[in-house]
């Protein structure tokens, strides 16, 4: 049901997906700088692991379209699309990933540990460990009597972690305004979901914790928007947590440099042919949006990312002694 999303949300979702995809597009060449001819993860301006979110943008925008700065989001080791959709400061986020002093955390955290307290965003590289903190943030909101919610994003692989099951039970027992969003991209690194998950649909697991569970097919921002809107409104009304399972895809490797030998032949090409962003653009055009409007918002989105990368590259590295600050508050 596409009609449920209003026009301004749909334009925002389109622009935000473009912003996220363009962010990753600029990461790619930057990541390989200094890493050739011999690839070495330690080298270049972006060392370490890099998990891109290409293909998963509908999950982030469909959910975050309903969120306010005061709502909490916890994300994963694959955080860029969610951070961007939650409104994390783009300049400071890019600078953090480049390890610069003006980064969100002054370069201490990097790509897997983005924190922006201004919009209540955090992420962690340990699988499923964002769920407990989301339950806590949701309880805080309930105790304070405001209507803020907390959303924890996770991969389908993380739904096999004990922390997932404990957090869902706790959220349900305490009836807190938490929403658990599974981005099902079918793989945890090389292991496919069907080889490691006892149920066909993770949404069915909600029944074990007496909360609504929704499966959203098609990697479609509008469909996510509709279902997430209901779950978030329910939480704001004080009716408790929900579980969302969103069918999505990972268009890149698990991390940059992944040879992806575990994929069946032709899979990436097939996935790219159903890339959710051009598909969404075609739908918006069919629904009467003007191409010129879409082009303009897309251009603005890309320009914001270009500016963020220019800012990040020009920014200064921190003083190495800064390593010793903020260990304690």
């Amino acid at each position, binding site marked *: 049901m596409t009609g449920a999303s209003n026009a301004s949300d749909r334009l925002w979702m389109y622009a935000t997906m473009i912003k996220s995809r363009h962010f990753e597009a600029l990461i790619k060449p930057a990541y390989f700088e200094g890493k050739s001819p011999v*690839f*070495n*993860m*330690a080298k270049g301006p*972006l*060392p*370490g*692991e890099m998990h891109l979110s290409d293909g998963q943008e509908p999950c982030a925008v469909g959910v975050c379209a309903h969120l306010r700065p005061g709502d909490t989001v916890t994300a994963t080791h694959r955080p860029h699309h969610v951070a961007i959709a939650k409104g994390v400061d783009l300049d400071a986020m890019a600078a953090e990933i480049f*390890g*610069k002093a003006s*980064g969100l955390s*002054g*370069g*201490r*955290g*990097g*790509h*897997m*540990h983005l924190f922006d307290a201004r919009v209540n965003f955090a992420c*962690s*590289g*340990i*699988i*499923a*460990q964002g769920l407990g903190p989301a339950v806590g943030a949701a309880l805080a909101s309930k105790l304070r009597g405001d209507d803020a919610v907390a959303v924890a994003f996770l991969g389908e*692989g*993380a739904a*096999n*972690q*004990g*922390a997932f099951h404990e957090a869902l039970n706790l959220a349900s027992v305490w009836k807190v305004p938490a929403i658990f969003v599974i981005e099902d991209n079918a793989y*945890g*690194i*090389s*292991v496919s979901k069907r*080889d*490691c*998950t006892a149920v066909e649909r993770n949404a069915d697991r909600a029944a074990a914790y007496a909360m609504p569970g929704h499966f959203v097919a098609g990697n479609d921002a509008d469909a996510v928007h509709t279902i997430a809107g209901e779950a978030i409104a329910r939480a704001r009304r004080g009716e408790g947590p929900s579980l969302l399972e969103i069918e999505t895809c990972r268009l890149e490797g698990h991390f940059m*440099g992944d040879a992806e*030998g*575990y994929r069946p032949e032709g899979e990436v090409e097939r996935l790219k042919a159903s890339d959710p962003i051009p598909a969404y653009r075609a739908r918006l055009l069919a629904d009467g949006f003007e191409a010129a409007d879409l082009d303009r918002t897309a251009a603005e989105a890309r320009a914001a990312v270009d500016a963020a990368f220019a800012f990040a590259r020009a920014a200064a*590295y*921190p003083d*190495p*002694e*800064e*390593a*010793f600050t903020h*260990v304690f508050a």
Partner: protein
Amino acid sequence: MSSPDTATAVRPARRLTIARAIAEAIGQEMERDPDVLVMGEDIAKLGGVFGTTTGLLDRFGPERVRDTPISETAFIGAAVGLAASGMRPVVELMFVDFFGVCMDAIYNLAAKQSYFSGGQVTCPMVLMTSVGGGYGDAGQHSQALYATFGHLPGLKVVIPSNAHDAKGLMLAAIRDPNPVIFMYHKALQGMGWLGTVQRSITDAPEGDYVVPLGKAKCVREGEDITVVGLGLSVHQALDAAGQLAEGGISAEVIDLISVAPLDREAVRASVRRTGRLLVVDDDYLSYGVGAEIIASVCEADIPLRAPPQRIAFPDIPVPFTPVMEHFVLPNADKVTAAVRQMMRVSN
């Protein structure tokens, strides 16, 4: 069949990475002992994120080489049960930083099974994992945590500095009746996508041999100072010893190999001759390997010519940005400088 001597003489030296050495050891032990099985995340089809199980799925099939869900509490707990049932599980959890989610299975179950059962039930399992930073992966993927696990009674903890030792240690670890935390350092692993200290790539016998758990090795003899390292820091100590030799300082380098049990006697014997001790460790400083080794020497009442020193990672989380990370990580230059300083203040 040629005699072993001729076989050695004709066999060309191999250049084995630690990753290959580990996979070879596990494969050989699986051939020899049908009770050995391997499980963990991405260890079957992928062959391990750090190459430790390459080729095993094809040779032994999915019953004995199992990809697990991301359910560490369950599969490491299951390994304890397999071990109690007489199997010999080799389990991988790719980064030591992830052990937090399943710590109970490690330090309350595996480590205590023999003791609590009064010796009725043993726990012959190997839990292998990568350690170390230096490549910008930040504080949840770069820790060493040797001392954290060395601190816990009932666990053996080892870390090879080269492929030869890695293979022999893995064979010893699988055969040991106790839980062994087998750590491998990412900077030594020989992965195509990470830099590797070339000295860690060595020859190793193709056949069966063990490097005993709990024994340190002297890897460079010297007279003026004993420098103790483990894993990567062995190579930093060796590099420093090379630099120091040019300035006329003769450093002895000890490769600890094992954190638990700790070969205190090997260190004491060396320091008895040199009178000076420096420990190099990329784990957090406080309550660490360095402290334990220095205490072992002090307790033995060995006459010292300079106060013992340690170089370690400071008591801060591992920062992401390389300008901070490399500032705080140990390296050969820091070792060289510390040794020179110790020589200056010596009597």
